[in-house]
């Protein structure tokens, strides 16, 4: 059984298009994340949602809009795609320990390789 799944696995599109990537987790976690991995393998956090509320919003262009319909799903919509958006996007999930606790283990999906032409 896949714990964190993403669709599609590959996405090739033209500059200027709008596209979405979907993520689902069946681990019962209450927090989900989106990361971007560049060509040098560097992983950078983009967003995080806890129980459908945005808790982390790094410096990301507002062309990127996450949407969490419920705590098991976190989708990423990207408007007006640019060449620099080409990367692998990873979804992850974890339990949220809040201000009284510490960060918990995050489990990653298989990634979506986005190529903007």
């Amino acid at each position: 059984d896949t714990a964190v799944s993403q669709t599609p696995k590959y996405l090739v599109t033209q500059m200027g298009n709008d596209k979405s990537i979907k993520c689902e987790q069946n681990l019962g976690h209450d927090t989900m994340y989106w990361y971007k991995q560049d060509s040098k393998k560097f992983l950078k956090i983009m967003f995080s949602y806890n129980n459908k509320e945005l808790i982390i919003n790094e410096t990301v262009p507002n062309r990127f809009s996450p949407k969490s319909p419920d705590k098991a799903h976190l989708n990423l919509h990207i408007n007006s795609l640019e060449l620099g958006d080409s990367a692998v996007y990873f979804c992850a999930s974890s339990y949220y320990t809040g201000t009284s606790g510490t960060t918990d283990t995050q489990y990653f999906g298989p990634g979506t390789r986005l190529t903007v032409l």
Partner: protein
Amino acid sequence: GESVGLHLPTLSVQEGDNSIINCAYSNSASDYFIWYKQESGKGPQFIIDIRSNMDKRQGQRVTVLLNKTVKHLSLQIAATQPGDSAVYFCAEGGAADYKLSFGAGTTVTVRA
């Protein structure tokens, strides 16, 4: 923000030898550290973690060492196997910051 870095971008290891992958972190407030393994075409996979109240933790064939004095983290892999070939990331997190900060990764190649 603070970042976590790895000392070496690549490591070549003879099959059967032990591997040591090093990581330096800069945020003294970090209290949670994780090692991930990423194989080609896959997402990062959790290997082992350690909290700041410990200095050593062992798993199956892996050991993580934490030296808070010099802000250094290492991953030791015993009897390295071809399946250990991957990119290894260390990541840090803290109570005041719910996100993980990742280093650049070390690519481990196991020679037969």
